[in-house]
């Protein structure tokens, strides 16, 4: 069993076919897990005593919220690797993750609003988690905006990468300060994100959906990084072959 030379796949030309083989696997896993998760969430899990059927939104709200943070961490990690080791592929990976992460954040906010309305009466609740999600969305948008504003790809990768690292260091500080701010202004609002006391089917459903989300994010990120590789290396022979024009 020969040992895997990880740097072998650091070249876009070699990573492209590998990623191409991985995407269907992760995609299928995502679909299957979603089906199972939704089955548990919508059929098996019992109705909640306090929130009625509305609580079922947590089966998408919590997974997307978790993923929004996981993807940002992954994005910052890849950006850091790209800066330190000067590898193009790592930076491409960070760029590929950003839109998916932003999407997860948006969905967390959207589902959060739709959960808040029937439960607490308003479309928006200024609780710590939702407010932090909003700031996270701004961080994602900032990353993507900076990247697209710079024409030179190398400078764009490195500048946006530095921004991602600054963001990831700042994120705990922001989260902590928002929590502080929220507890100061408590008033009558209860902690919005207190999920109902978790019966096992509910927890199972949430975990399965979280895993499904994760598989989806990986699949889409890999698909997008293939696209980015082709876009950036479009004049090379391998890219032309891949696009079917060589």
């Amino acid at each position, binding site marked *: 069993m020969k040992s895997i030379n990880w740097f072998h796949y650091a070249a876009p030309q070699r990573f492209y076919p590998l990623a191409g083989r991985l995407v269907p696997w992760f995609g299928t896993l995502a679909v299957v897990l979603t089906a199972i998760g939704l089955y548990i969430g919508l059929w098996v899990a019992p109705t909640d005593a306090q929130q009625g059927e509305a609580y079922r939104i947590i089966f998408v709200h919590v997974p997307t919220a978790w993923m929004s943070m996981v993807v940002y961490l992954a994005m910052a990690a890849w950006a850091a690797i790209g800066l330190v080791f000067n590898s193009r592929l790592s930076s491409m990976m960070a760029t590929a993750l950003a839109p998916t992460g932003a999407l997860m954040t948006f969905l967390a906010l959207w589902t959060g609003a739709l959960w808040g309305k029937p439960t607490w009466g308003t479309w928006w609740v200024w609780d710590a988690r939702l407010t932090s999600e909003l700031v996270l969305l701004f961080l994602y948008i900032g990353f993507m905006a*900076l990247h697209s504003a710079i024409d030179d790809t190398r400078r764009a990768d490195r500048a946006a990468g530095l921004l991602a690292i600054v963001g990831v260091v700042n994120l705990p500080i922001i989260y902590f300060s928002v929590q502080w701010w929220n507890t100061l202004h408590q008033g009558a609002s209860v902690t919005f994100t207190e999920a109902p006391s978790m019966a096992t089917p509910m927890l199972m459903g949430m975990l399965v959906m979280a895993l499904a989300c994760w598989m989806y994010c990986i699949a889409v990120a890999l698909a997008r990084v293939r696209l980015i590789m082709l876009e950036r290396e479009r004049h090379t022979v391998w890219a032309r072959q891949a696009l079917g024009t060589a």
Partner: protein
Amino acid sequence: MNTHVATQPLPPAAPQGWLEGFRCVFQRDLRIALRRRTDSLAAVVFFVMVVSLFPLGVGPEPALLRTMAPGVVWVAALLACTLPLARLFADDLQDGTLEQLLLSSHPLPLLVLGKIAAHWCGSVLLLVLVSPLLALQFDLSASSTGVLLLTLLVGSPVLSLVGAIGAALTLGLRGGGVLMSLLTLPLVIPVLIFGAGAVEAHTAGLGVAGHFSLLGALLLLSLFAAPLVTSAALRISME
């Protein structure tokens, strides 16, 4: 009459003590800022205008305004401090000074700190000192105004320091000021929360020690980290 005096002495070629570079850049930038008073004053006027707009938007009821005052002043300070920062490095980029600074044998973070310090003394400090007058508009009590002033004194350097990172990352880009604010504002939200929160806590009769220690911690953290990150960002932008 707008003379960007390029004949101001740059840091000497050989290091003569680590403070030398800082002092040189600081004095140079401060001198330039004082000669271009319009730029510094524009930030202050912007600050005053934004604060004055809020009562026009929400109505003149004194109780409401008193509650809003810390938040309004702080948000306006956020905007007034970060927007002009976009040009922190722009002039030096244009006349080639920035390149010289990058090539200098002095540690770049110190030189950057010098520029930020000069910018703060030239533009932001005036803004901070004007804030008590604005607090009058909102009928804020004297002691609360004092707390507000202190929070701004401790917090505004953080705004300048973090803003410099944004300015360095967006150096020479078309989007310019707006993009830079877009990047910087999420990062300074903790300062806003603790700064405005301190004043509100004081008005409510609670202690402000916690807020100030956190603001102080943020200041120390950014004093150490921001010049380093800004230097890295400058090198990235200038490649």
